[in-house]
């Protein structure tokens, strides 16, 4: 029976046991109060059942003490739930700095995934265990949601912007990947598998699927092919700001605001360049909307991210042999 009727999902990420602990706490509180109410009602209903049609009970007046007690105690318990849930949520929201980036593009009705080493997959995601994975996700059409029950995490994938999800798998295995936000006809077909693998198996998998080029490399080809360097000169002498050292830095805008140059900002600056103009520059960049796909865009983002690191000296593209797969610390800057 056990295999036919599983009642509890596998827990295969670092956060999963913590979500389960919270679930057990919530369940315990709920069970306590449910039993309390059910038993009390049963007891009162039997004990005080009507014995004669004309009986009239004496009034029992409401008591202030009771009312305060059963307001304050439940409220206290809910505040425990709130704090516990909130701290977990903060962990789920902030990927560790050393997380391995993976890019996800959702479209009706498939998941397109690209690793920074350049491997592409559809409806499958191969990852090493014990290594934080950071997904940067967007959608080509409608809202989707990237949901891996065994990892206890999900995030909507929204067109027009990037969303982020991270997890560290703890057990090798094959886990369900679901689209959790209704996205049309074959919503229930927008499913796949996450393969969590031992590091050496993962390495083997990477090597058995050698890509033509890494993401940053592909991005650099796109960058040059579209003529971007004509204006965005690396030394800053061009008509447009230099992109070297841009990623993760603070950008001062013409309208007085300051923002951190993250993936979202870079994406927006390519498709809707006039949204945020850098102080000191005109708004002369034309939009590249329609000329680049979401998959091109993530490659460009990955390239510009690499440019962000380049100030520290010429480094090979990440994902090429022997290079650590790390992204710069956004929050530190």
């Amino acid at each position: 029976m056990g295999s036919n009727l599983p009642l509890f999902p596998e827990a295969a990420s670092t956060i999963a046991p913590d979500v389960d602990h919270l679930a057990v706490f919530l369940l315990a509180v709920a069970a306590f109060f449910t039993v309390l109410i059910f038993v009390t009602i049963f007891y009162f209903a039997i004990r005080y059942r009507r014995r004669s049609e004309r009986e009239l009970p004496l009034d029992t007046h409401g008591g202030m003490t009771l009312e305060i007690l059963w307001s304050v105690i439940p409220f206290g318990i809910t505040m425990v739930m709130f704090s516990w849930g909130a701290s977990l949520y903060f962990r789920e929201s902030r990927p560790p700095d050393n997380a391995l980036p993976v890019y996800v593009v959702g479209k009706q009705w498939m998941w397109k995934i690209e690793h920074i080493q350049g491997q592409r997959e559809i409806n499958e995601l191969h990852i090493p265990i014990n290594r934080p994975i950071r997904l940067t996700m967007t959608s080509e059409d409608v809202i989707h949601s990237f949901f891996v029950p065994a990892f206890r995490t999900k995030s909507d994938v929204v067109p027009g912007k990037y969303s982020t999800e991270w997890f560290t798998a703890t057990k090798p295995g094959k886990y369900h990947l679901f689209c959790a936000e209704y996205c049309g006809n074959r919503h229930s077909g927008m499913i796949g598998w996450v393969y969590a693998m031992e590091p050496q198996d993962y390495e083997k998998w990477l090597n058995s699927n050698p890509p033509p080029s890494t993401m940053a490399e592909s991005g650099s080809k796109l960058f040059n092919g579209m003529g971007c360097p004509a204006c965005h000169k690396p030394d800053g002498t061009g008509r447009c700001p230099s992109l070297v050292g841009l990623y993760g830095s603070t950008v001062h805008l013409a309208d007085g605001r300051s923002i951190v140059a993250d993936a979202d900002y870079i994406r927006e600056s390519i498709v809707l360049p006039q949204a945020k103009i850098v102080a000191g520059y005109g708004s002369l960049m034309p939009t590249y909307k329609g000329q680049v796909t979401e998959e091109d865009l993530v490659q460009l983002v990955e390239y510009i991210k690499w440019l962000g690191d380049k100030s520290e000296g010429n480094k090979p593209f990440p994902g090429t042999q022997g290079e650590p797969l790390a992204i710069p610390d956004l929050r530190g800057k």
Partner: protein
Amino acid sequence: MASEMQLPAHEESLALREQFDTAAQQKDASTLGMWIFLITEIMFFGGLFLAYTVYRSMYPGVFAVASTSINVYWGAANTVVLLTSSLTMVLAVRAAQLGQKRLIVLFLILTLILGGVFLGVKAKEWYDKYEEHHIPGPAFHLEGLNPDNVVSQGHAQLFFSLYFAMTGLHAFHMVIGAGLLLYLIFEARKGRYTAEYNTPVDLIGLYWHFVDIIWIFLFPLLYLIDRHLGK
């Protein structure tokens, strides 16, 4: 209560509906009902004000440019027209409270005319927008303030979508108001409203002033904010 209503059958008792005990109760109920209706209107326009605020905070530069492309003088003139119509409306209410039957009709007609002028100016402004290709859609195009200033057409369309949604729904409320005024004028000419019974004039007055208040906010938000950038 009900027995006190055995007064000579004048219009007041004729207008008393059977679910009420007294005319005062009926008037109170109607007034409260109207105010609650106006609250729903606040929330109705509230959704649009929210969308405006969110997008303006996201794209302040484009909104300033787009806002500058609207003719502020027509907007200001129209504000004056609408405020004047509020004055004539409140004078109509006053005339009704005093039972000055001829003045009610006069002020109501003035209000209606001013409302018509407002809508006419509004139509002219929309037509200008049409000529300038500022109607959201495939033909949309908004020029920058100078050659160096390329405007994000998508964001500019957002502004004009909201502009037309907000002024359009406001104008729709004006049209409804004009219809209600016509009804009032028709009834007032028959001498229906007296010092004792004038609730409809009062309530439609409230509605008219409310529509005025909406415009009082639309005017600065759509026409004025960041106007200085366009100098």
